[in-house]
């Protein structure tokens, strides 16, 4: 987080009262992400309990194939790095560079979603087939929803960091930082999900 001292003296009711406070929007966002993380924690706990307590019949056991989810993991990790690049560029007021990196990040997010859908269409089980199938789709679907929202938000801030008329610059970094933190969060959740769902 950057520390900027933009506290201006402001006039209030014609009296000389200085009123500044710290920027705690990031603090609020982190609190929200903790709450969001607890939703995933609930899903993971349910999945692991099912795995331990309700074993599937042998006929329903299916080994998930790893190539697509591994590719997806790499895509998301790379997208985290590219997003970081976008932030660095914006900090130096290189808006067009920042915008390029943001579009690239959004592109990676879209590829991730396409791969995810491709995997869905090629899996031999549907949502209601058995307990594992239901939990699989609920977990990956809920995460996919987060990626979709994140991609949309990245496109919005990419638009906002355009050179002429955009409102993002090194003085106003918060929207980018907020979406960046959210995006890292979604990536982190995917890594946990990948380990629990595909590797365990």
């Amino acid at each position: 987080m950057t520390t900027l001292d933009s506290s201006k003296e402001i006039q209030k009711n014609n009296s000389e009262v200085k009123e500044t406070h710290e920027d705690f929007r990031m603090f609020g966002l982190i609190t929200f992400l903790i709450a969001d993380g607890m939703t995933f924690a609930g899903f993971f706990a349910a999945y692991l309990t099912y795995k331990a307590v309700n074993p599937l019949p042998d006929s329903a056991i299916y080994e998930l194939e790893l190539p697509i989810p591994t590719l997806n993991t790499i895509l998301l990790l790379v997208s985290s790095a590219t997003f970081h690049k976008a932030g660095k560029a914006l900090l130096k007021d290189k808006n067009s560079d920042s915008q390029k990196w943001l579009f690239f990040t959004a592109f990676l997010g879209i590829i991730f979603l396409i791969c995810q859908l491709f995997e869905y269409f090629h899996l031999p089980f549907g949502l209601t087939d058995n307990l594992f199938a239901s939990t699989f789709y609920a977990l990956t679907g809920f995460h996919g929803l987060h990626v979709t929202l994140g991609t949309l938000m990245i496109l919005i801030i990419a638009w906002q960091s355009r050179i002429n008329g955009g409102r993002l610059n090194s003085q106003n970094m918060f929207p980018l930082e907020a979406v960046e933190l959210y995006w890292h969060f979604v990536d982190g959740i995917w890594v946990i999900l990948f380990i629990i769902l595909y590797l365990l």
Partner: protein
Amino acid sequence: MTISIDPQKTNNESLQPKGWLRYFSFSLDHKVIGIQYLICGFLFYLIGGTLASAIRIELASPMSDFMPRDVYNQVLTLHGTIMIFLWIVPVVNGAFGNYLIPFYVGARDMAFPRLNAVAFWLIPPSGLMLVTSYFVEGAAQAGWTAYPPLSITTPQSGQIIWILSVLLLGGSSIFGGINFIATIIKLRRPGLKLMQLPMYCWAMLGTSLLVVLSTPVLAGTLILLSFDIIANTGFFNPVLGGNVVVYQHLFWFYSHPAVYIMVLPAFGLVSEILPVHARKPLFGYTTMVFSIMGIVVLGLVVWAHHMFTSGTPPWMRLFFTIATAFIAVPTGIKFFNWVATLWGGKISINSAMLFSCGFIINFVFGGITGVALAQVPFDIHVHDTYFVVAHFHYIVYGGTVFIIFSSIYHWFPKVTGKMLNEKLGILHFIITFIGFNLCFAPQHWLGLNGMPRRVAEYDPQFQFVNQISSLGALLMAISTIPFLINVFLSVRKGKNAGDNPWNALTPEWLTSSPPPVENWEGEAPLVEEPYGYGKEISVQK
């Protein structure tokens, strides 16, 4: 990064309606939002209370003659859901939290005023949705716990509306929690230390942590449950290979902390009210803070004591029994601190004080039966009987609702600038206290003798005791009348209160009544000793 407040941007109150009309607007003023929460919650309390009366009328006779059995199930489900999610949680957190926390931390508003308004305005539509679901295909029938497979097999539309509305209310609760945490941690007036905050701030900090950590789990669970109902998945449906106990674990992971979400703010409020009316400092401030945080930590790891009859393995029973018994320690510390605060004080016997003392008495009973219920052999005996009903009504009504009334008597002069009538207030207390104990104390006996809860019909041998209980419920219903008369008369013709009628030291009394839009004319006062009664203290301006 620091943000400078631009008065042109934040002070848009001038654009909003004045007078009573502002309570119907999308106001960003924390005081207006607090009162909106309170009045909205009270309207739902009247609806929930009507449903409770219907339940007690039905139970005055052993047969289901007042209403059909399925309607009885709908009524008890709506009663529980409305009272918890639309009356107690919004009022004891949202209403008093919004009104008081910015004063206590020396701020002009909450940290995120717009989020605050969003959190409130989620409540009326979801409440209306819940209440009107009765007219669709029948409301939800599975109780406020919505245990599957019952919630999957009963008519679906009512259950789905119930899930939607609880999800919205949970969202509102999370937004509120984020706001309170940010306000208390980040928006404190410079120079104000954490250990100088009034106790209600600590209670709300603990409550908000519980809200943020546990409510999302309920949201996830209800999403899975709605998949089971709509999409025919089998998460919680044993017929399709699912596991009902997983639902119970996830549900109680929220709903046990929910008990503390309902009662911790009441602990905070009573800690504000007692020192003022006993003219003594709050006894044991530091132990109070640590016991609140102790309750928060322990409150997250005791949920399975609701599930001792769900085939819980012995190690789990042992762990959750011990953990639950431990909660009695911080709770007991708080109880003794309140008694010690009263001890030797110059106590004024007014309505606020009476309701607070009523709270202490009722809460001890509820606490004792709570410790008893945590013991596996006893719990298995009284599980799902009226003993449980009596226990939790002693906590949430005898505890929290008594404190809500106490707080209304205490802060009414601050909000309106008028005093409430003391005679009507004491009458309100006497009828409520007698009615409440008459209604719920006999239910302990009913439960111990095996009367199951949530059933419209019962063994005729229980009829007499049930009629005593119904008489108590009638008194509780009547007790609302002097209260409503009191509020309406006092708002119009009450005697002027002045800025600080109780000579209190907490910051909200150091401004005019009712307070100006941004709380203070000048800078916020620095209150280092909010409970410094009987000491020489100075308030730095």
